[in-house]
Each structure stands twice: as structure tokens, then as C-alpha cells.
């Protein structure tokens, strides 16, 4: 009972983002890619924001990118995050272009910087959902 109330919010996939979450469950990062203009976009929608084409498929991306910007939460907005503060929420720009909101793991919050190279890692929420997060790229 108690553990239910303090769990972090579970993503509730929309029909158009279901393939994204299905790939994430298999620990793959897959984004919609336009078959007309060849560009990726995020978040998933039913038409390409670059050319309005409705022909697209979910394609794997490299999972590598850099931190465009980030913030560090000190205030607890929801009890589920109380143990995490201070925690970093970052906007990661993938090498393929799209920017994703995410957490940065594996590095003290005060060492995170803009432009830092990062790569995807997956945080298993339960049997259905794995949440893509990022960590500094080694080397």
C-alpha cells in the first residue's frame, strides 16, 4: 500500500507513442522517422513536424547525444522524488537531432554540464515499462 503511493509516476503511453515504449521495454531507443524527408522527431505524433507526411516508421537511434541544458531539483514536488533530491532533469540532444527530456544518472549532480556527451541507459519500472535515461559516455 505504502510502496504504491510513493512510486514515481508511471508513463501512460498514448496510442501514438506505444511503439516508443515497446522498444524501450526491449532496451532500444526508437523514434519516429519520416519516410518522405528522412528526419527523426520527438515526441511521437502521427505526422512529421518537418514535412507533414504521415508515412513514417519507428527506427532505432544511436542512443548517443549531448546535454543541451539541464536543471537540478532541490524542492520535492512529489513525495516519490524525496529520496532523489537534488536530482538532474536534462534536455538531451540526440546525434540524430531530436531533444529528449530525461534524467542523468551515474554522475554527481554538480558535475553535470551543458554539451556533456551522454548515452542512453534503461531504468526498468516494471514488466511493461522501461524508462530511457542517460549517463555520461565513457572515454
Amino acid at each position, binding site marked *: 500500500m505504502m510502496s504504491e503511493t510513493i512510486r*514515481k*509516476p*508511471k*508513463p*501512460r*503511453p*498514448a496510442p501514438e*507513442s506505444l511503439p516508443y*515504449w515497446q522498444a524501450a521495454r526491449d532496451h532500444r531507443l526508437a523514434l519516429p522517422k519520416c519516410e518522405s524527408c528522412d528526419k527523426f522527431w520527438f*515526441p511521437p505524433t502521427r505526422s512529421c*513536424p518537418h514535412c507533414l507526411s504521415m508515412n513514417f516508421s519507428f527506427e532505432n537511434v544511436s542512443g548517443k547525444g549531448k546535454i*543541451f*541544458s*539541464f*536543471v*537540478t*531539483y*532541490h*524542492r520535492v*514536488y*512529489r513525495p*516519490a*522524488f524525496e529520496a*532523489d533530491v*537534488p*536530482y538532474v*532533469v536534462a*534536455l538531451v540532444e540526440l546525434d540524430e537531432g531530436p*531533444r*529528449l*527530456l*530525461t*534524467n542523468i544518472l551515474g554522475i554527481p549532480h554538480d558535475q553535470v*554540464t*551543458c*554539451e556533456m556527451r551522454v548515452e542512453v541507459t534503461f531504468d526498468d*519500472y516494471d514488466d511493461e515499462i522501461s*524508462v530511457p*535515461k542517460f549517463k555520461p559516455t565513457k572515454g
Partner: protein
Amino acid sequence: MIPDITPARELRDTCAIVGTATSRLGKVPGVSSLDLLVEAIRNALDDAGLKASDVDGVLCRGPDESYSHHQLLAERLGINARFSTTLTNGGASQIMSVALAVMAIRFGLAKTIVCGFGRDTWSRTHSSEEARVRNETRPESMLAREFGPEYGYFGATAAHAFGATRHMHLYGTTRDHFGEIAVAFREHALRNPDASMKKPLSISDYHAGRLIVAPFGMYDCSLRSDAAGAVIVTSADRAKDMKQPPVLIKGFGFHNNTRGWFADDNMVVTAAKQAGEAAYAMAGLGPRDVDTAQIYDCFTYMVLTQLEDYGFCKKGEGGDFVASGALRLGGALPCNTSGGQLSEAHCEGMLQIVEGVRQMRHTYPEHRQVKDAEIALISGHGGNQVCHSTLILGRA
């Protein structure tokens, strides 16, 4: 990248603001946002020497959950309205309502229009223990479904803090710069008996304030207020014979970076850039002509970046500009001279318009008046951080 359009210069100086007022500001428990707005409008009508029956247009923004809020408002005012609607661009709505009023009056759709906004944010979130708990424990159903809450991403503070971090990274801006904005506006609030914040704020107080979402601490964040404001717009011809010195509407402009706050460079170059260029073009003015700026200050950083986007300094030089003391009364560009949303009260940009009008009237005591001010620039920012409005006022 400015679209090849010509702002309607023929709208310049065709209309004036002839009345303005606020409701009680700050903590006004037990009064709805609609009642606060009616209070502000009644005070504005008194200020203008008009009756509600003199008004034939009503433009407002309502609470997000209110349907056709202007109808509720006009019913309270006891009037039918020729021209009336509700705007929903968040903090960019209030200036847009003034611009719509000018267009409607200029093209004969109405004669005298009241524009206003009221909110009861303090009462909803802080007035009681029940309100606090309700605010802190919103049900899951009110959160975004995905791509945010699972990462612990909540609230407008973080959204704007992303821009602050990026600006600091690109240009070496510091929290000392943000702090100077908070300190300057607090100093202005101390001169304003209606302002919510009554205690002085030093830069060391600023740094001692607890962090909320870094790089923002508590003094980077605007207030939660019960507040309403209103202005009354009519033609410049009719304004000549009225109770108050008319304040001319010289220009306005809009831009919406609707590709998103997280897209492109939008978090460091805001839509204030194009909105400002359009407003300057209509007014036939530039940043050097502006004597006082009333900038939408939901967070300190937003002031700094808008000052750059409006051309008061170059992009990236906002830190040095504010550090020079420019924003203070007596400085090069006195800014948010009533204390702003950081220290007076937060009414989603409505009080910025009220203060701009008052500065143009030259009726303030010396310690509050921007000396010899002839032109005021006012900004509105809202939606999901991407909608922007600019208004330029001048003395008749």
C-alpha cells in the same frame, strides 16, 4: 528571420488608455478571481470617470477551466457588449486584449473597451492547510501522461530554469546577475504601498534563499497572488475630454515560438525579439527611445533575456547590463517600477500594463516616477513559455 509583413502603422496613436486600476493585491481570501476582476474594473471606471454602461466591449482572460469567461464578466458588469471574447495565451493574453481593443475601436466595432485579468492564486494554493495539501498532491490524472512526470519534471520553474542554465553556459551569466534583478525590483516594491513584499532584499539574502530548481532559488521565482488589474481603452479623440491625461497606444507586436520552448534556441532567444521588432515598427521607435520597461518577470532570468531580445543590450550582455544598475529607478532603464511579479503581485502581466500607464501619466510622487518618461515598453510572456506580446505606450 522576420516575416515580410508591414505592421499597421495607421493604428499608431489612434487609441488611448483612459482608465486603469487594480483590485486589492496579495492575499485576498474568500474573493474569487472574477470578483477581484470586477473590483479592478470598478476602480478603473472610477479612475476614468466612466460608468459600466459607457463600455461596449469586454476582453479578458479567464481561469483555464472557465468557459467563455467574458460572458460571466459582462454579466457581473451588467452590460451587453458589442465586442467581447476571452483570450488564452497565458501571460501574453493581457497585451493582446489591449491590441484587439485598438483594432476593434479603430474599425468601428466598439467605442470603449475594458481589458482585464484577475486571479486568486494565493487563495487557491496557500490560504489554508487544505489548499496547500491540494496544491501539493495533485492527482495523477492532472499530470502529463508521459515524457515528464516519470523524470520528476514538474512546474514552470524548471521549464524557465532550463533557459537560465543554457544562457549561463553560452554567455557566462551568473546568479549574481539574476540576484540583481530580484534586488532591484524589491527595492521598487518598497516604494509601492500596495506591493506584497515589504522587507528589503540584499544580494546576500538572495543567495541565502533556498534553492527550488537550480539555478533558481526562491527569490528568482514570482509570487503567488490574488490580484486583478484592468485598463479602459477608447479612441484618442474621445480620450481628449476625459478625466485622466490620456496615454496613447503607440504600437504592439506579437510572436509565438510555437515549435516549442525546447526547440531551436527558443529558451535563450525568446519571441520577444520578433514581437518587439513589430511593436517598434508600428510605433516608429526603437529601444533607445524607451524610458521605462515593464517586463514580464515570472522568473528573474526571463527579464534578463527579454532585455536582450528587445535590443536594450546585445544578446549575451544582459548580465553586464543589469549589473550596471540600469533597471533601478534612476538607472538607464528603470524596469518593473512597481515591484513586478517578483515583489508586487503576480497577475500574468496585467499589472505591468497598469504600471506602464501610471508612469506615462506623471502623477506619481517623485520617488516612484521615472523622470521625464515619455515612452514605456511592456511585455507579456506565456502559453507554454513561447507566446509573446509587446505593447508600447506614450504620453499624449
